[in-house]
């Protein structure tokens, strides 16, 4: 990929003295959410927290409603915001963009809420955050690169044919399995899967046939 080799930002360690701000490598310009999360982490900055709330709160509520959780939608917003505050120190630009991190927290909070409401069957006892996390230590990508990947996905989303965008949105935002999306749209399962696949390829989220 055509990224210049950037020096990698040292990830924040928990409990260390956080007075100096994260080095600015330019990723803050591409990912304007990241500095807000860092301000919450470093300074317990309430105005930054408020900005995150103003920006993402209404979207998280919309997300909850799409999932059929209308009566619990603001409860989900609360849970997500509280988790953002509590876990801000775990945020690491080199691992995820700001909105990716908030998405992961939202997804996990949604699962926890459903568990609490007893709406999930066949539940394992393993905690959600263990289950849906990215384990392991990979080569640190630069935060600039993470931000660029996010930006590139954002821009190519707009160019996606409507039927592909629809299917992707349903799978991601409405918590629907491929099978349920197929039932709902009255399409064969194979069609839904191939639309998702085409979309993922166009967005460069997956690459052409990898070796099976």
């Amino acid at each position, binding site marked *: 990929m055509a990224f210049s080799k950037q020096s990698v930002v040292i990830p924040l360690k*928990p409990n260390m003295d956080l007075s100096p701000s994260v080095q600015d490598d330019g990723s803050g310009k591409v990912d304007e959410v990241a500095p807000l999360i860092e301000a919450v982490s470093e300074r*317990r900055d*309430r105005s930054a927290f*408020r900005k995150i*709330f103003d920006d*993402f*709160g*209404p*979207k998280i*509520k*919309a997300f909850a*409603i799409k999932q059929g959780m209308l009566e619990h939608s*603001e409860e989900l*917003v*609360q849970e997500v*915001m*509280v988790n953002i*505050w*509590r876990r801000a*120190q*775990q945020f690491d630009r080199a*691992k*995820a*963009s*700001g*909105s*990716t991190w908030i*998405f*992961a927290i939202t*997804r*996990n909070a*949604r*699962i926890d809420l459903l568990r609490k409401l007893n709406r999930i069957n*066949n539940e*394992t006892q*393993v905690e959600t*955050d*263990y*289950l*849906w996390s*990215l*384990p*392991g230590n*990979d080569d640190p990508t630069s935060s600039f690169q993470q931000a660029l*990947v*996010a930006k590139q*996905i*954002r821009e190519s989303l707009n160019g996606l044919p409507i039927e592909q965008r629809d299917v*992707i*949105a349903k*799978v*991601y935002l409405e*918590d629907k*399995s*491929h099978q349920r999306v197929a039932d709902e749209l009255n399409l064969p399962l194979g069609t839904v899967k191939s639309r998702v*696949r085409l979309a*993922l390829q166009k967005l*460069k*989220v997956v690459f052409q046939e*990898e070796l099976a």
Partner: protein
Amino acid sequence: MIKHHPSDDILVEFSAGSLPSHLALCVSVHLQYCSTCRATVSRMQTLGGELLRGMDGVELSDGLFDAILDRVELSESVQRTQVVKPIDLLRKWLPDGLQGLNWRKQWFKLSEYVLEVPDKGNWRFSLQRISAGGIAPFHGHRGNEVTVVLKGGFSDESGAYDEGDFIIKAPGDRHKPQAFQNEDCICLTYLEAPVSLAGPLGKWIEKFKALFGSQDAVPSH
């Protein structure tokens, strides 16, 4: 070298959080071994983030932000939450790893250690061990069977599987796994429904089981 991965469909559902939890756990265990899938899931989550960010918002109630501030202030005064690190997803059941487990023999060279079974329902989440060189009975599947190789490896009619490999057998698939010769093979297995034995002897046993209505007894621990 990991050669067998979850399909992109499964990784998408994993990233979106819609996968049933045991299947998600199997995927998580595979991710601990597989940097390729970790990178894919990372991009899939980035897509999730962008989709969330692109949504049209719905107006929030007045006072919601203050309620949130009250809660964070309360938690601030109690304690900082510990950073949760996903070290070993199976530690809840296997505090000492794979050492010293009380295996239950199922077939000549095949034993099982149950991790979780439901009060109601048929699924089964367990470790399966085939002794070095041993062959598990030829069997078919009534539901999906998800397997992640934790130690050693095995082969069957469709390929060879090493540590970290992720395999799904669909209902109707039949196979006869054989452990590699040099060491025992231990797999994490999630069965949606009980397996059915195949082959002449197996069919005879299945008939026998049906006749006496025997359900596999589950050891308690």
